[in-house]
C-alpha cells in the first residue's frame, strides 16, 4: 500500500519541483538579461491574435509586429485577426505614422 502511494506521489512531485526550479531560473535570466525594446512593439503584438500561425509569412507575431512598426506592412497581412482588432490596429498604425511625421515636418 505504501509503495503504491509512493509510486503515485513521487513522479508529479519531482516533475513539479523541477518545473518550479527551471521556472525560477528562466525568470531570473529574463530579468537580469532583459533587452530594452520599443514599447509600441508590445502594443501592436497585443492587438494581434498571438497564435504564431505564420500565415503572414513572418516568423511569429512579434516578427510581424516589427515589420508593421517599420511601416513595411499593414494589419491586412494578418490572416486570422478579428475584424474589430484589425480596424483598431490600422488606426493605431496610422496614428503612429502621423506622430512620427509631425516632429520631422515641424523641424523643417
Amino acid at each position, binding site marked *: 500500500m505504501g509503495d503504491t502511494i509512493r509510486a503515485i506521489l*513521487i*513522479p508529479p512531485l*519531482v*516533475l513539479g519541483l*523541477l*518545473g518550479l526550479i*527551471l*521556472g525560477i*531560473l*528562466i525568470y531570473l*535570466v*529574463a530579468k537580469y*538579461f*532583459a*533587452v530594452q525594446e520599443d514599447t509600441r512593439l508590445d502594443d501592436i503584438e497585443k492587438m494581434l491574435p498571438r497564435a504564431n500561425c505564420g500565415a503572414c509569412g513572418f*516568423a*511569429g507575431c512579434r*516578427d510581424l509586429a516589427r515589420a508593421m512598426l517599420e511601416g513595411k506592412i499593414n494589419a491586412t497581412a494578418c490572416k486570422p485577426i478579428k475584424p474589430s482588432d484589425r480596424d483598431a490596429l490600422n488606426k493605431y498604425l496610422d496614428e503612429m505614422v502621423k506622430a512620427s511625421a509631425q516632429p520631422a515636418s515641424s523641424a523643417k
Partner: protein
Amino acid sequence: MELIALAFTAFFIENVLLTQFLGICSFIGVGKKRSSSLGMGLAVIVVIVLAAIVTWTIYNFVMIPLQIEYMRTIVFILVIAALVQMMETLIKKFSPSLYKALGIYLPLITTNCAVLGVALTNIDQSYSFVEMLVYSAAIGFGYLFVMYIYAIIREKLEYNPIPKAFQGVPIAMVVAAILAMIFARFGGII
C-alpha cells in the same frame, strides 16, 4: 585512447546529421548561409553539452534513486525546453544580429531531436560523466562541421547554372544525399 575513439565515432561515423538523421529541419533551413550556420552550430553545441550535463546528472542522482527511470523522456524535454528558453534570452541580449539570423530556428532547437537524441543515447549507453561530455561535445562539433560544409557548398551553388526545376531546396537535397553517402563510408574505418 578510448575517449579519442569515442569522439571520432561520434564526429564522423555516427554523425548526427548525416548518419543518424537527427535535427534535419535546421540543417535544410539554416544551412543556406555560412554565418548563420556557424551561429546555429555554436548554439546547438552549447545546448547539447549543457542539456547532456543536466539530464545526465538528474538521471543518475535523482531518477535512479527514486526509481522513476521511465519518466526520462518527459523530464528531459522539460529540461531542454527551459535551457533553450534561457539561451534565447542570452543570445538576444549579447548578439542581436545572431538572434535575427537564427529567427524561428532558435526556439526550434527545443524540438531539435538531436538534443534529446544525445541525452537519451548517453543514458542508453550508460556513459560515465567524462564519456558523456566527450560524446556530447563531439556530436555537437559534428553537427557544426557538417552544417558548415553544407553551407559552403550551397553558397557556391548560388553562382552555378542549375536547371530551373532543381533550384533552391531540390538541389540542396541532392547535396545532402551525396554528403550522406560520403559519411556512410566512414563506417568502414573502424
